[in-house]
C-alpha cells in the first residue's frame, strides 16, 4: 500500500522552499529594519481564545481543528492555531502588557479546514502587529511595510483596497437590528458576502438612498469619502467619527502618493476589526490583509490598548514569484568529484570553496550536472577544473589557484 499524504496537506520540495524562504527572508528583513521584533506562539491554544464575540466568526469556528488534549478531562478543548493575530494578542497580554509599545512580527502556520482538500488546510502567514502605537501612524506604517515587502518580492500589479469596520458597524446600527442580527450580518460581510449590506436598504427607508452610493461606487480618493460625509452629516451623525478616521487615513495615503481603492464591501476579514480594514491584491489575487482591532485586547482581559496589524499569505506570494527570483545562481555552484583515495584532499578543496562563498557539493554517480557550471576533479596529483557548459578543462595544483581562476572568470 502506498503511504499517502494527508488530504488537504502539502509537501514543499527544495524549489518551492527556495520561494518560501525568499518570502520569509524578505519579510523578516523588512520588519527588522522597521524596528519590529520576531515572536513565535505555540501551535496549540485553548479553543475559548477564539470563540467569544469579536474574535472569529462562527463560520470560521466551524472549520477549526479542535480536540481534547491528553489532559483534557476538564472538557476544555484545544485548537490548532486558526489565526495569527489572536495568539499574538494573547502573547502581548501574557508577556508584554505594561511595557508600552510593542512592534511584533511572526511567520507562522494557521490551520483551517477546507472541504475539498484541494487547497492546503495548513496555511503560512507572515504577519506584523503594532500594539499601543499612535493609531493613524500605525495604520499607515503597517500598510507601507506590507507594500514594501510586496515590492521587494517583485510582485506585479499590486493594488490596495480599503474599507472601514467602524463605517460598516454604523450602517448596521442605523438599521436598528437586534444585537445578534447585527453580529450575524457583520460576520456575513467579513466572510465575503457583499450582498449582506445591500439587503438592509429594503428594511430601512433612511438607508435606501445612502446604501447604493456607499456600496456600489468604488472611490479612489478621500474626496469620495468627503462627499459622502457632506451628504450624510445631517441624517447620519453617528457615522461621523468612523468616517473622519477613514478620511484621515485615505488623505494620508494620498499625500504619500499611494493609490488605493475604497470599497466598503471589500471588508473581508475578521470579526475583531474595529477601524480601517485593508486588502492587498496582485491583480485579482488577494495576497494579504489587515486592519485595526482596538477592542480585541480588552476583550481578552487586557488593558485598553490600540492595535492593528496585517498578514501576507505566503503560499499565494510564492506562486507569484518570478522564476528568476527563485532560481539558484548556477555560477556559484561547484561539483567536487573525488576518488576514495583522495577524499581528504577533496574535503579540503570543498571547504575552501565554501569559505569563499561557493556552494560546493560532492559528485555522486547520479548527480545531474545540468544546473552547475563547474566541476573539480580531485586526484592525488592535482586538480582539474571543468567548465561544464563549454567542456573546457583547466589544471591546477591548489584550491587557491582554482579560487583565483573562478574570481577572474566571474569578472569576465
Amino acid at each position, binding site marked *: *500500500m502506498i503511504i499517502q499524504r494527508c488530504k488537504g496537506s502539502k509537501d514543499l520540495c527544495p524549489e518551492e522552499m527556495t520561494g518560501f524562504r525568499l518570502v520569509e527572508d524578505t519579510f523578516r528583513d523588512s520588519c527588522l529594519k522597521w524596528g519590529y521584533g520576531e515572536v513565535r506562539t505555540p501551535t496549540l491554544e485553548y479553543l475559548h481564545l477564539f*470563540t*467569544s*464575540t469579536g474574535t472569529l466568526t*462562527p463560520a470560521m469556528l466551524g472549520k477549526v481543528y479542535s480536540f*481534547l488534549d*491528553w*489532559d483534557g*478531562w476538564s*472538557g476544555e478543548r484545544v485548537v490548532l492555531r486558526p489565526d495569527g493575530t489572536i495568539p499574538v494578542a494573547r502573547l502581548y497580554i501574557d508577556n508584554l502588557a505594561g511595557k508600552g509599545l510593542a512592534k511584533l512580527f511572526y511567520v507562522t502556520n494557521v490551520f483551517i479546514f477546507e472541504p475539498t482538500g484541494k487547497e492546503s488546510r495548513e496555511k503560512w502567514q507572515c504577519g506584523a502587529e503594532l500594539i499601543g502605537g499612535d493609531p493613524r501612524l500605525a495604520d499607515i506604517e503597517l500598510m507601507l511595510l506590507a507594500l514594501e515587502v510586496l515590492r521587494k518580492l517583485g510582485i506585479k500589479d499590486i493594488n490596495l483596497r480599503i474599507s472601514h469596520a467602524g463605517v460598516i458597524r454604523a450602517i448596521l446600527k442605523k438599521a436598528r437590528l437586534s444585537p445578534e442580527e447585527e453580529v450575524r450580518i457583520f460576520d456575513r460581510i467579513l466572510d465575503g458576502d457583499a450582498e449582506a449590506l445591500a439587503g438592509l436598504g429594503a428594511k430601512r427607508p433612511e438607508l435606501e438612498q445612502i446604501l447604493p452610493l456607499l456600496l456600489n461606487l468604488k472611490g479612489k480618493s478621500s474626496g469620495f469619502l468627503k462627499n459622502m460625509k457632506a451628504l450624510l452629516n445631517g441624517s447620519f451623525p453617528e457615522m461621523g467619527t468612523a468616517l473622519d478616521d477613514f478620511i484621515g487615513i485615505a488623505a494620508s495615503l494620498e499625500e504619500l502618493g499611494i493609490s488605493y481603492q475604497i470599497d466598503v464591501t471589500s471588508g473581508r476579514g475578521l470579526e475583531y476589526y474595529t477601524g480601517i480594514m485593508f486588502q492587498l491584491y496582485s491583480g485579482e489575487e488577494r495576497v494579504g490583509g489587515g486592519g485595526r482591532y482596538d477592542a480585541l485586547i480588552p476583550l481578552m482581559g487586557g488593558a485598553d490598548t490600540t492595535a492593528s496589524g496585517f498578514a501576507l499569505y505566503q503560499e499565494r506570494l510564492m506562486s507569484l514569484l518570478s522564476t528568476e527570483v527563485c532560481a539558484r545562481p548556477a555560477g556559484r555552484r561547484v561539483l567536487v568529484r573525488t576518488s576514495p583515495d583522495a577524499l581528504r584532499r577533496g574535503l579540503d578543496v570543498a571547504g575552501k570553496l565554501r569559505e569563499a562563498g561557493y556552494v560546493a557539493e560532492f559528485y555522486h554517480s547520479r548527480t545531474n550536472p545540468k544546473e552547475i557550471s563547474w566541476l573539480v576533479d580531485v586526484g592525488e596529483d592535482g586538480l582539474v577544473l571543468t567548465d561544464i557548459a563549454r567542456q573546457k578543462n583547466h589544471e591546477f595544483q591548489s584550491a587557491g589557484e582554482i579560487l583565483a581562476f573562478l574570481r577572474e572568470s566571474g569578472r569576465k
Partner: protein
Amino acid sequence: MNVKMALPKGHLLGGTVGLLERAAWGLTDYYEGMRVYRLSSGRFPHLFAKVFHEEDIPVQVAIGNYDLGITSLDWIEELLTKYPDSALVKVKDLGYGDGALYAATSREVGITSLGDLSQRHDTVRIASEYPNLAEHLAASLRLRRFRIYPLWGAPEAYPPEHAELVLLSGKSEEEILQSGLLPLGKIIEGRAVLIANRNSWETGDMGEMIASICDHLAPDAGEKEMKPASPPVFAAGRSWGKVPDHVVRLALPDGHQQVHVRRILDAAGVKISDYPGEAWHRRPVSSLEGVMIKVIRPQDMLVQVANGNFDLAITGRDWLFDHLYQFPGSPVKELLDLKYGRVRLVAVVHNDLPVADIDGLRQDYRGRQQKIRVASEYVNIADRYARDNRLGMYRIIPTWGATEAFLPEDADLLIENTETGKTIARNNLKIIDTLFESTACLIGNTGEITNPVKREKIDTIVAMLVRAMEAISRDDH
C-alpha cells in the same frame, strides 16, 4: 444491484417496522424483541439489512458500509455538525419518531434563555450525549468560556450542580419540565430520516426501494400527533444547593450495577431510598451523614471525578482504563476493588478468519493491503491495543454496544467485554487475546483533599466498604 441497509432499533423501531410492513418488504425477523441482527427481504432478494443502534447508523452509511439507512435526525446532525463533508445524503423525512433534542437548564442556574449564557463571564459547563452539537451550540452562542462533558447517558442528572446546560432528547417540553429541568429551546426534531451514502446515491439504482418507502409513509406523515402528557415522573430530585466543603459527593451507577451496589450498601448497614429507583430519580437519600449521592452512568464518572465534581464513584475498571488511556495525567485512581461484575476485555475476530492470535492477524492483514477496522465501545483501549500491537493502518470504529454484530461485514476486530464468552461463540466469533480482567471498583481523586472532615469521612467510607466486602465474601462462602 446489491443494496445494504442499516435499520434502527430503539425508539424508531416500531415506526420503521410499520413502514416496511406497509411497503411489504417481507423483513420477517425485524420486530420488537428480535433475536437476529441480519435480515433478508422477501420482496428484495438483493437487499441485505442489518440492525444497529441509531447512533451508529450515520457513521456506517457515511463510511460506505451501508448504502441506505433509517435513523433519527439528531444523530445525523451530530455527525454532520462536526464533519459537514461526510458522504451522507438526507433523502427523506419519514414523518414518524417523536420528540426532539432540547437545550435545558435547571431553574437554579438563573438563566431563562440561551442568550443569557452569552453574557456570562464564568465557565459554562455543557453536558450531553451529543458533544459535537454541544460544541456547535457553544460556538454559535459565542460563549466566552465553556467546557463540554460528553455523556453516555442520564443528562438530566447534571444541572445545576455539575452543568449549567444540557442537550437532551425528550418527547416534549412537558417531559423536560417534568424531569425537573427548564427547557430553553428545541435544537433538532427527533424525526426518522431516510439517509443514503453519497456515492451509492450518485451511482447505484435504489429507486424501487426508495419509491416503495415514499409510497407507504403514514398518511399523517408530517403532522405529528400530540401525545397526551406522560404520567408525572419523579423529578430528578431536589438539587443539592450549595454543598459545604466537608460534604463527600458520591456517584453511584445506574443500570444493572444497581443491585450489586445495593447489596454492598446493605452489607455495610447503609440505608438508601430509591436505589435501585425510578430512571428519573437521580439523587437518592441515604443514612450516610455528610454524603450527597447522585446516580449517573458508570462510563461518565471518570471525567466527573477527574474534574472534582465528585469525590468518590463506583464504576468499572474497564472504563477507568479507557479514561486513563485517553488522559494519562488524570488524577483519577482506584481505591477499592468491589469484586462484582467480573468481565474479561478480549480481542475478537470472526471464526472464518484463519488466525489464532493478534500476531497472526497482523501478518494476515500485512499481505492484504487493507486497513484493519477495529470496532469497540472502548475507543481508547482499542486505540492503545492497536498501537501496542503495531496493527499499522487501522481505523477505530466507535460503537454504542452490541458490537458483536459488526463482524465480519463492518469490522475486522472487536475489543469487547465478556463474562462467559457465550455471546461471542453464539455469533460465530472467537477470542484471540485477553487484554485484562475488569471488576467494579471504587474510584477517587488523587488530588489533595484539604478539608480534614471530608478526608476522614472518605477514609471512613472506604473502610466501611472494605468491611462490607469481607462480610459478603463470608456469606458467599
